[in-house]
């Protein structure tokens, strides 16, 4: 560990506060029963109101089976993980080709990869809904995951393309001269070297999927709840920031944070690759 200077540390603290600040009112709100402007703190806390309310509120409600939080959470994670995995697996070869080769129509391919990001999601979603209904996968996990792939893949391809642009093709060539076929070259040389980038692409795809409301809403027809659809239903039906919604907002941020930590752990000092602080340094060492 290197020591950080005093100004450096001050800067870090300020940054942390700035990022954490929006969460503070949410945290307080999630434990409040009554919190009117201009009071600085709630006038009545949740635990004081527990006996007087007939229904569970806030965290009590969220963690009770009737809220449906559990299935929504599970749906979000499962759909997110599958989407991210598929996005990465599908984007890897495409990104490698886009990074390494020039071919006719490359610009067109690159443009079409961006289209889903540019075109409003509602247009994409309506189009897919019509198609999915016809082939019978609307309102299914398959349909939702396919829909999520549309905005996820462009990002994954972008990230992985720059990863492959930074990977010297000579590593693969050197492996081949040593008798390594393409599969073993990919497994033993390419994959370990692009792992940090792949993790980033995976994380990004997951976060995109975990934050999608509109596409899920359209394709699932409200039958299948994820955290975002659940959150939106709360927002439209209630006061902007009751305890339940505040708690839900906090929970929606959980998968992202967890995955951020996992990826940090995978690419950081703990990882097997971290032994040489590989990745950041190896690029500079290349002559």
């Amino acid at each position, binding site marked *: 560990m290197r020591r950080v200077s005093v100004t450096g540390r001050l800067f870090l603290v300020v940054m942390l506060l700035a990022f954490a600040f929006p969460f503070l009112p949410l945290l307080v709100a999630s434990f409040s029963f009554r919190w009117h402007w201009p009071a600085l703190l709630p006038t009545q806390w949740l635990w004081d109101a527990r006996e007087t309310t007939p229904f569970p509120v806030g965290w009590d409600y969220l963690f009770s089976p009737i809220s449906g939080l559990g299935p929504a959470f599970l749906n979000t994670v499962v759909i997110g993980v599958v989407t991210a995995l598929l996005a990465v697996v599908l984007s890897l070869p495409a990104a490698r080709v886009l990074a390494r080769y020039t071919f006719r129509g490359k610009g067109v391919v690159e443009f079409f990869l961006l289209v889903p990001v540019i075109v409003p999601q509602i247009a994409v979603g309506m189009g897919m809904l019509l198609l999915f209904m016809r082939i019978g996968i609307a309102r299914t996990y398959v349909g939702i995951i396919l829909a999520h792939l549309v905005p996820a893949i462009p990002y994954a391809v972008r990230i992985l393309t720059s990863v492959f642009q930074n990977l010297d093709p000579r590593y693969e060539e*050197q492996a*081949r*001269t040593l*008798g390594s076929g393409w599969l073993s070259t990919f497994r033993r*040389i390419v994959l*370990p070297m692009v792992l940090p980038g792949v993790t980033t692409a995976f994380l990004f795809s997951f976060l995109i999927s975990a934050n999608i409301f509109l596409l899920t809403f359209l394709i699932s027809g409200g039958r299948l709840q994820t955290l975002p659809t659940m959150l939106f239903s709360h927002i439209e039906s209630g006061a902007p920031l009751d305890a339940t919604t505040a708690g839900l907002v906090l929970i929606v941020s959980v998968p992202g944070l967890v995955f951020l930590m996992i990826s940090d752990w995978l690419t950081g000092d703990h990882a097997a690759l971290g032994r040489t602080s*590989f990745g950041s340094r190896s690029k500079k*060492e*290349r002559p």
Partner: protein
Amino acid sequence: MTDITLHGVSKTYDMDPVVRDLTLHVPAGTMFGLLGPSGCGKTTILRMIAGLLEPDCGDIAFDGVSVLSVPTERRRIGMVFQQHVLFPHMTVEENVGFGLRMQGVKLRQARPRIDEVLELVQLGGYNRRFPGQLSGGQQQRVALARAVVTDPVVLLLDEPLSNLDARLRDDMRVLIRDVQRRLGITTIFVTHDQAEAIELSDRMVVLFEGEAAQEGPPEEVFERPVSSRVARFLGSTNLIPVQVPVYPEEGWVDAPFGRVAVCCGGYAGGSVPRELLLSVRCEHISLHGEDSPGTVGSDGINTFHGRVLDSVFKGGLIFYRVDLEGFPVDVIDRSDRQFVPGARVVVQLPEQHLWVMPAVEYDGGPV
């Protein structure tokens, strides 16, 4: 032992011909040097032999069998890239053992062999280091170890010693030569270093713009360049403009400083052009003090009087520039005595090391 044949091989990178109709034969078990200016296609040629690049036309054969359809990983080659690329996520021993592992040998069983090869490149005990923890020269030696550990039949070395200091370079040269001889690996290596080319290679080729200008044993190429361009590229050579005398006399030419006897020339039969270039390597010229007559060849043929302009002592050799009646000649001398600038000397051009060639090169075809 495998011999390598390139037949009419060409390669063009976006309209830019890099290798043109190259035909080369590398005899089995030889050490073959590839020399040429930067960008003349040396790396491109090695990559085609390795199968990393497909020639546009022509054929590449090992032992007379075309290998164009054989993928790199099955050509049984060892290659050291110009920018030696060690796998950064593997330790030194994992790097060196990679080729063995591809042959199905477990790292544990491969370890004695890995240790042996690491010992050879003077890196014993570095097994657990990562490439990022090695110096450039150490990385280069690991790359060399990795290329030879699998006993390839063809070894391709793209300037494998460029990052090493003089002593290590000598050691590694001996090592490469040893490994190559012991296993009879047909080896093609790229170098910029004359000494390396002379010391290592059995045969060599000089390339210009993807074309072979001259091919042969190194002594022959260095002493008898086919053109002034080859001579200039190889360097350490005096190119003296000479003329055939008005009344030609067999074996004599006129140099700016007098008449010189020559025995051989590099022009094809037919009419001898009048304007010629006399080539003599710096180390073949000998210097004598004017006051010590006995030492000079008794007949006095090809001896001229000159004055030392400059002398520099470098690495056990003395580099002179000598003025021969207004014409400067470079001399490399090994003897102990050093002439100071201004000293009068007798310069002798040994007849058997003189070589004449046409002064103007005509386009196309070897001169």
